[in-house]
């Protein structure tokens, strides 16, 4: 409940930040804590092991943190950094631990954070747009469309690799459009959308599998498999740079669109009678969700279940208000992703499994639990 509930005047929801409540704050703080702990574990362990203290010191190494050249080098890439700053010399030497932490292990944590946030808000938006709790980028065909586009790029048009996020977004959007068209019959219904999504996903997944046979060498097949299961193995600052712009855009739009999502939750008729152009709003918000999902898929492949369960978890904690829900998803998504990736990378050390397998193993049982607990799963 809002803080000024007692006064009764202008309480709660519509004050600037008036919707932030204690539950939301604690959800966000605990998620941040989980991300930090998971991140620390992630940077300490590996083939070059260090103690948590060493890792912590490396993460906070001022030689990197306060050096604009190093930071820009990470965030913009070396060429762009040099172009922007006009810096010509060599980057300063770093201790080995710092180099390993900052160059190899931290970017993976950052990518996990971005992927988790993207998938979570994508799922949350899709659930409101389709008014279906089972909706997620995975169910609605977006994932398989983006995945197919990525595979096509890798196997057939390998020259287009730098444009992967765009291509993924294009594939995802195309698949979602297809789902929408199939489901359309004087408007769409949640059930028809999910059914159409399943149909489109199945077809696209068959096409993906089919593509494997056209891959020339085993390496491509393996990387293709990593894409379709969702993996963070080998991600680098390049992936951070790739996903960051569209993630930022998607997050801003999602937060700004929260009130529209709330009105959509009142039902199509009410939304329309309040003067909302329902189909147009749905379409634009779906665009945001596709953008978010594609940003995630472009760097990590198809990580299942995150987009489905994170909004559920957050909804159970903070309620269905989309301002709270979106913000909650932005924190809980990364927490889940970072923890899952710790498992993916370290559980069977030295073998790394794709993180999508771990999220599936966490997500499946959780969903089963939800199904047992909730009477009418399916309604938002």
């Amino acid at each position, binding site marked *: 409940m809002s803080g000024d509930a007692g006064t009764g005047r202008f*309480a709660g*929801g*519509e004050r600037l930040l008036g919707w932030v409540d204690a539950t939301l704050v604690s959800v966000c703080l605990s998620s941040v804590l989980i991300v930090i702990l998971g991140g620390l574990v992630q940077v300490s362990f590996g083939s070059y092991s260090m103690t948590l203290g060493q890792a912590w010191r490396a993460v906070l190494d001022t030689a990197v943190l306060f050096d604009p050249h190093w930071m820009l080098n990470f965030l913009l890439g070396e060429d762009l950094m040099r172009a922007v700053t006009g810096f010509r010399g060599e980057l300063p030497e770093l201790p080995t631990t710092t180099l390993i932490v900052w160059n190899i292990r931290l970017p993976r944590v950052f990518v996990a954070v971005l992927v988790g946030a993207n998938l979570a808000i994508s799922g949350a938006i899709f659930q409101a747009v389709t008014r279906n709790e089972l909706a997620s980028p995975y169910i609605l065909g977006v994932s398989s469309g983006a995945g197919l586009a990525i595979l096509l790029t890798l196997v057939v048009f390998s020259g287009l690799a730098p444009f992967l996020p765009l291509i993924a977004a294009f594939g995802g959007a195309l698949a979602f459009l297809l789902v929408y068209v199939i489901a359309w019959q004087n408007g769409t219904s949640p059930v028809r959308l999910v059914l159409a999504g399943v149909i489109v996903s199945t077809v696209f997944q068959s096409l993906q599998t089919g593509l494997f046979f056209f891959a020339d060498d085993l390496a491509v097949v393996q990387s293709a498999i990593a894409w379709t299961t969702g993996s963070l193995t080998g991600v680098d600052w390049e992936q951070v740079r790739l996903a960051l712009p569209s993630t930022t855009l998607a997050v801003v739009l999602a937060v*700004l669109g929260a009130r529209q999502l709330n009105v959509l*939750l009142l*039902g199509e008729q*009410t939304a*329309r*009678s309040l*003067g909302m152009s329902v189909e147009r709003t749905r379409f634009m918000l779906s665009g945001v969700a596709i953008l978010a999902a594609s940003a995630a898929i472009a760097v990590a492949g198809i990580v299942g279940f995150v987009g489905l369960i994170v909004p559920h978890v957050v909804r159970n904690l903070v309620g269905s208000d989309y301002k709270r829900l979106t913000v909650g998803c932005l924190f809980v998504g990364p927490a889940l992703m970072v923890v899952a990736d710790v498992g993916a990378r370290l559980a069977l050390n030295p073998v790394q499994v794709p993180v999508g397998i771990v999220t599936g193993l966490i997500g499946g049982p959780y969903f089963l639990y939800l199904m047992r607990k909730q009477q009418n799963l399916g309604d938002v």
Partner: protein
Amino acid sequence: MAKSEHEHTSATTDGEQGEERDGALVGDGLTLSYPTSERPVVECDRIDIPRGEITALVGPNGSGKSTLLKSLAKQLTPDSGSVLLDGKTIQEYDDKEFARELGLLSQENESPGSLTVEELVYHGRYPHRGFFEQAGEEDHAAVERAIDLAGVDHLREKTLGNLSGGQKQLAWIAMVLAQDTDVLLLDEPTTFLDLHHQLRVMETVRQLNERRDVTVAVVLHDIAQAARFADYLIALKDGEVYDWGPPREVVTEDLLADVFRVEAAVNYTPDPEIVPKHSL
């Protein structure tokens, strides 16, 4: 407000056209159907919702009253004919502009359980706010007025999931009141409510009409209730207007027999009181 101006113009046209009424909302030559229906559900030459009055649409199940209301509220596009709001066809209004002029409370509403009454009422300000706009003083004032008028002040922090059917309906009414429109359409707002809440709803509507001069059209199931509360009745039968006028002219034993297939006695005191006897 454009109202007085409009009255003026309609007064001048009155002399020329004789029986021109001052309809805030006018349906002209409407044919309405649903994509799934084979034949038109409603066909009516003209329907007037008089300005500043409460008009009740009555008729048996399936007579097309909700359908008619939907088309008046721009929720259903007519196959032919047009609907005029203040002399302008409703297609000429953009969606938000229209929602600032005309509010609609649908028969069934989906209420997210964790939404508070106050949050719901704020959604009524949607058409008055820009895409990214925060709620301003005007919005706060309108919400307070609506909450006060609907008498849900004590419920404002409660979530919809914890309300009874009647309380929920009052919360929804507060939401459409916050929309602050000159015309309000209500689709069976009293169905499924207990007697106390039925009266609360109708009294709120009456107050709104008297204090703020809002034009109301309401679909009512119960013709006795309609006769008591409405200034005008529109009786529908099989998708056509059977009769139109003040209750004491419209509500007759013949109407009850023809339209509602009920044999009843009607006592005029002077408002009509209906004593149903048996079905025909």
